[in-house]
């Protein structure tokens, strides 16, 4: 029996067992694959959105902004309404403000007191009627420290949207008055991001409970939330502006851009935000709808004007002629952005052809540097975030700019910093590490941002730009009611900025998103927001 030597047999036995185990494991793993992807986004008439945020935002009115504007776009604007809203139905024009839960509004002569006529016949998803009491309750929650429902977190998150509100009162059942802190011409614009929840639900559930079971008046109703995984919203059949076409909207946080694109390719989602630029050409060739449009976004370097060399306007302007924005857009961003040649994004109402004040001319840049006393250039530091809402792909972009600037003798030392740490400095008016410049993505989506970034008294003016002329123009803007006339004032501001060059302006993002071919009826607006009510998803595709 035991003719083979024991150790050899022993070994053979063991190794056979080991091989068998391996084979079995491989088989099990392969067999399990099956039709894993069939249950994904293919469900009839359901939009499944792959968000960039790493978690589902807080589902309570303005608190949704805690995950950036994506939270307002996909949660607040879907579950809730404001008194006003942006008209997102036409991708060829810059969105204007139109009535939402207010039917109309009238300011007094000096724009300090605004009367809002509320829209009749609207009810919250729980049947609570929308009226002056509901409006005042919510405004109190946002902005009246003396009201029992005042919510400090919501007040802080409300930020610029509620900055103009001084007090408010009910006139009659369907009329309210809002008084402002001085003339506040753009109150209706600010109010588009102040959202209204059902007072019944808020009082019954408390603030935390409400965020787990939100009730608004919006086009979609809350159905279910699985923490960190998905939010399901269903069509509001009784939406005052007509029921949306979709049956359901499902939000999924997929923070990794490659995984997000893969989820779209496999059909698990049929809409993704911000594909990696490198994937755009192949997604287009595979029949996906790659959508871009100008919107109110700008990606600058904010110069540190407190010290040399950027206390010198010639140096500040020189760099603006030294960078090849078109090459950045073509090679690194694959057309998902457009060159910014001035301070005003093309999707801002104040954009004028003359707003574009810079170009690409390295010889001119070098000459200006020489005039400023830096014929051989200089060395500078740049603080930039490695990620963060709206910051695009900061590392390759800043590396490209570093190369452009090296060509005129400006050596840039890149100092990456975590987004949360950068914000911490930025909000108290500092540039991290007192670097010579900082890169951050900014916007004029809210008109108050003009003052935030450039007002000499603003706490978020990290570069310490100061111009009495700009301050005066920004104060004037608050007194000009007519939208067109007011945009002329901002256009003048942009002209002054063009002379003072407080930023190195680089690109305006074009808000890239990718939809499956069977997602129909969406208009890509010139906005941070998106109207989901016109969309339908067909079975085929």
């Amino acid at each position, binding site marked *: 029996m035991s003719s083979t030597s024991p150790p050899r047999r022993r070994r053979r*036995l063991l*190794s056979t067992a080991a*091989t068998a185990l*391996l084979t079995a494991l491989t088989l099990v793993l392969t067999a399990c694959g099956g039709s894993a992807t069939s249950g994904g986004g293919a469900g009839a008439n359901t939009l499944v959105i792959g968000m960039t945020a790493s978690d589902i935002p807080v589902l309570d009115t303005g608190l949704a902004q805690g995950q950036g504007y994506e939270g307002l776009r996909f949660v607040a604007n879907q579950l809730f309404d404001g008194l006003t809203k942006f008209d997102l139905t036409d991708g060829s024009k810059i969105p204007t403000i139109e009535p939402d839960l207010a039917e109309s509004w009238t300011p007094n002569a000096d724009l300090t007191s605004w009367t809002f006529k509320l829209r009749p016949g609207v009810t919250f998803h729980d049947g609570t009627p929308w009226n002056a009491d509901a409006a005042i309750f919510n405004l109190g929650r946002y902005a009246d420290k003396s009201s029992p429902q005042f919510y400090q977190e919501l007040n*802080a998150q409300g*930020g610029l949207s509620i900055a103009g509100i001084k007090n408010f009162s009910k006139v009659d059942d369907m009329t309210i008055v809002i008084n402002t802190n001085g003339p506040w011409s753009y109150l209706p614009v600010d109010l588009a991001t102040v959202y209204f929840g059902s007072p019944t639900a808020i009082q019954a559930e408390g603030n*935390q409970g409400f965020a787990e079971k939100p009730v608004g008046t919006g086009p979609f109703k809350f159905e279910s939330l699985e923490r960190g995984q998905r939010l399901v919203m269903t069509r509001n059949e009784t939406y005052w502006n007509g029921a949306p076409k979709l049956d359901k909207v*499902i939000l999924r946080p997929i923070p990794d851009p490659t995984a997000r694109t893969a989820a779209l390719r496999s059909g698990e989602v049929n809409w993704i935000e911000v594909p990696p630029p490198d994937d755009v050409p192949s997604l287009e060739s595979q029949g996906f709808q790659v959508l871009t449009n100008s919107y109110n976004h700008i990606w600058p370097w904010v110069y540190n004007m407190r010290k040399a060399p950027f206390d010198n306007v010639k140096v500040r302007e020189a760099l603006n002629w030294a960078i090849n924005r078109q090459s950045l857009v073509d090679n690194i961003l694959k057309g998902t952005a457009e060159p910014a040649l001035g301070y005003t994004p093309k999707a801002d109402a104040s954009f004028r052809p003359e707003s574009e004040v810079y170009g690409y001319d390295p010889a001119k840049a070098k000459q200006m540097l020489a005039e400023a006393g830096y014929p051989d250039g200089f060395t500078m530091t740049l603080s930039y975030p490695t990620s963060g809402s709206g910051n695009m792909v900061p590392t390759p972009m800043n590396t490209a700019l570093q190369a452009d600037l090296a060509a005129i003798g400006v050596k840039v030392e890149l100092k990456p910093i975590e987004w949360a740490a950068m914000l911490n400095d930025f*909000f108290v008016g500092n540039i991290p590490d007192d670097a010579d410049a900082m890169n951050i993505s900014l916007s004029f989506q809210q008109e108050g941002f003009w003052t935030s970034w450039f007002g000499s008294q603003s706490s978020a003016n990290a570069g310490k730009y100061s111009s009495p002329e700009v301050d005066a123009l920004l104060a004037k803007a608050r007194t000009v009611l007519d939208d067109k006339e007011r945009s002329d004032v901002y256009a003048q501001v942009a002209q002054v900025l063009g002379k003072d060059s407080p930023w190195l302006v680089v690109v305006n993002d074009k808000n890239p998103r990718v939809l499956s071919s069977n997602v129909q009826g969406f208009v890509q607006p010139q906005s941070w927001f998106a109207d989901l009510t016109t969309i339908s998803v067909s079975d085929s595709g």
Partner: protein
Amino acid sequence: MASYVGKRLLMAIPILFGVSIVIFITIKIIPGDPVASLLGPTGSPEARAALTERLGLNDPWPVQYVKWLGHTLTGDLGTSIARRSDVAPMVLDALANTLILSAAAAVIAIVLGVAVGALTALRRTGVLARLGNALALFSISVPQYSIGLLLIIYLAAGAGLFPVSGMYAANGGGGFVDLFNHLILPAVTAALVPAGIIARMFRSSVLDVMSMDFVEALTARGLSHRRVMLHAFHNTVPSLLTVAGLQIGYLLGGVIFVEAVFAWPGIGLLVYQSITQRDLPVIQAGVLVSALAFVMLNLVVDALHGLVDPRIRA
């Protein structure tokens, strides 16, 4: 045995205490505060100040820590600053998800590691053995993040064999089969490093045991091969337990990249997000339950040691 377990559990208390202090100080030292990251660029200075005050972030650090400790000791893990909801259910849900992923990864790692280890130990010269050695080295060296992405690109998005991310299909009803399908890729990704290490360790441990005198002695005394193998393997178990226990412990914290790539809603991802938001209550709770799970796991491994090796029980 009971007093041994009790002693070990008591020892866990200072460990957890120390962990909580280290985490607290680390989060306080690094720049960035939760209010700034929460409010984005639109928060007014006054509102930020008011919120900071309300969240108790103006208190001196020791006061903040003692307050937190007091609440934690009474079972109140607090409220998430960024998510505005209770920390306890959030962290427990995430821990459960991580345990599912870690358990699956552990099974794959142990089976794969033992199989490859045994194969390479017993057939040191064959092609299969060389392949096994190469595989083990590869799996230890390659970054999980990139392997995860490659698996997603080729097996999930490319071949369509597996879902790309998440725990359940977005539009499905859930259920075990759905979970299982979503589990495979992340579990395999997470299992690679521990599988490689277990394979290498198990290989040397098998070689050690097989070269021991008692193997020859038992054979010489006429024991059947099966009996000899049983004795031989019995002697590899303690070292296998040690290395596997450690590796599975590391899995609990190490799956963070896997969770990030596959959008797996586990404790690693939750703590990572919370760090970027400086959401201290969630970070503290997340790290504490992870540490507790690690301690418990080690305890189980030690208890198993006692079972298989009578010398340790004494």
